[in-house]
């Protein structure tokens, strides 16, 4: 594989990593529902013509077929837009993939506002919340190219179903070659003592880092954590930083109800009640527009994070 920093889009890292894994493991299959061109998995098909299964525009069937393939030992990586991956095939993913204890890796692309021009019908705000309530499911959202590459390997090695939120475009680099990635283990991107910004996903991790810079200008020391695994939540790290900073802001490109903010709040309220402010989509439907417009419209900017951080600190 090429050097991670040389990629312009995360989706290419996704495909190249699968091609790599697929070389030594023929059980790996890629499944698509007429969005191969969007997911960017065509090179996998070129490398393995029979192992990319295009199901046509039929997501529910795709997830059901993936479950059957899994029961026979295959490891299907199933791709479609996050909205359809979850909402459209939820019962199939819930029952055939998870309740039946299968090994289906469902990948929902274009999370949250990154669905931009596809608009409200295509804007997955609720996929994190929907998947987080499925018992034993692992829910991940990589924060950069390195994270995607290494977590995808971990997802492959994990025995059981996974839901991955995958931003297709851009390749922000936050981590380095030497960063260790493990499912269920958050990563401290920078340390701080006044407030902790817990972010998930490429968009919001970058926003949180920006926000921390802004806060630093006002002499507020913010810790930033990449919580790439929303489920299972890294409780140990969350607890440690709740105690250390006494104020938390969660940052997610998703409906704030039931997602990362929900997970952190649920955990802390029963262990170490701490002020948790949540940055995320506030119980709204998506809408169409450019990324910048939507980030602003749904209050996902560094400024909003800064504002919430100050509020959290003031409520300590």
């Amino acid at each position, binding site marked *: 594989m090429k050097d991670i920093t040389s990629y312009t889009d995360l989706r290419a890292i996704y495909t190249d990593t699968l091609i790599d894994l697929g070389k030594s493991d023929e059980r790996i299959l890629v499944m698509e529902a007429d969005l191969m061109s969007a997911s960017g998995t065509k090179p996998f098909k070129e490398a393995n013509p029979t192992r990319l299964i295009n199901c046509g*525009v039929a997501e529910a069937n795709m997830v059901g077929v993936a479950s059957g393939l899994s029961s026979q030992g295959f490891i299907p990586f199933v791709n479609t837009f996050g909205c359809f991956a979850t909402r459209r095939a939820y019962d199939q993913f819930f029952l055939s993939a998870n309740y039946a204890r299968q090994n289906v890796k469902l990948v929902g692309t274009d999370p949250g506002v990154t669905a931009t021009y596809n608009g409200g*019908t295509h804007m997955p705000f609720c996929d994190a919340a929907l998947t987080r309530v499925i018992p034993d499911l692992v829910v991940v959202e990589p924060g950069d190219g390195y994270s995607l590459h290494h977590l995808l390997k971990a997802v492959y090695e994990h025995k059981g179903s996974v839901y991955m939120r995958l931003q297709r475009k851009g390749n922000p680099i936050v981590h380095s070659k030497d960063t260790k990635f493990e499912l269920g283990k958050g990563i401290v991107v920078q340390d701080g003592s006044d407030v902790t910004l817990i972010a998930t996903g490429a968009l919001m991790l970058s926003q949180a880092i920006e926000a921390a810079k802004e806060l630093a200008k006002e002499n507020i020391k913010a810790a930033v954590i990449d919580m790439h695994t929303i489920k299972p939540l890294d409780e140990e790290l969350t607890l440690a930083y709740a105690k250390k900073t006494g104020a938390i802001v969660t940052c997610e490109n998703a409906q704030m109800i039931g997602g990362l903010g929900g997970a952190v709040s649920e955990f802390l309220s029963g262990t170490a009640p701490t002020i948790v402010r949540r940055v995320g989509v506030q119980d709204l439907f998506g809408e169409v527009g450019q990324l910048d417009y939507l980030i602003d419209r749904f209050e996902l900017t560094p400024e909003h994070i800064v504002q919430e951080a100050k509020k959290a600190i003031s409520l300590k």
Partner: protein
Amino acid sequence: MDTQELKHLQNKAKEIRQLTIQEIGNLGLGHIGGSLSIVDILTLLYYKMMENIDPLDPRKEGRDKLVLSKGHAGPALYSVLADKGYFPKEWLMTLNQGGTNLPSHCDMNRTPGVDFTTGSLGQGSSAAAGIALAEKFKNSGATTYLIIGDGESQEGQIWEMGMFAAQYKLDNLITFMDYNKLQIDGTTSEVIDLEDIVQKWNGFGWFVQRVDGHDIEVLEEAVLKAKAQSEKPSIIICDTIKAKGFSPAQGLQSSHHMAFSKEVAQKALDDLLAE
């Protein structure tokens, strides 16, 4: 249809194609292919067949309705609605921009004249069946038109609706399948083949016709025959060309959702007018 009327409708279709190319061209990218393949169907419906529709009263009781289940073709419908005066033509230049009333996929709560919200393929078909059933309850005599894609027809929901509409004898439901033989990842026959599509719908108990989806005269005859049916829902399988009238990508898979420059748009408009 007399030749004068036919000519008029054909010209109208050309204008709608022009508007749609300008609308998407102004943004620089969009679903040009699937929008242009249904322009002749839309033109026939909105300028000839649909009854009781009123741009000044978009939600008029008892009007005929259209559900564009392949909601990504919204830009073509917006061109028609703007041309008919449901909203100002300037709105077309706001397509997909933040705060617009014209989102990429049809939204009944944002766009005057849009009868149902669509975008998740398959869903519009059931909504249309629900509307048709409601018209039966209301005894309105109104017709519900539905446009589905060929790729879209791979969704199980289309076929669930198919059985439902036959069971409930929705003869007031007239469906067009835009058979442009292309979806995003290839031809429909490469991805998941639909054939024998006529026999499939026949087997579902529908009244099936297959026509040239760009021949307005033939389309009209098919709609009239469909309207004359009693008890059976109708489907008109329309053989079409994706991106019809858009010279840079007519008939190409790449036309599904493509980016193109202002110059390419201008060239396409020139070619269209020269046709």
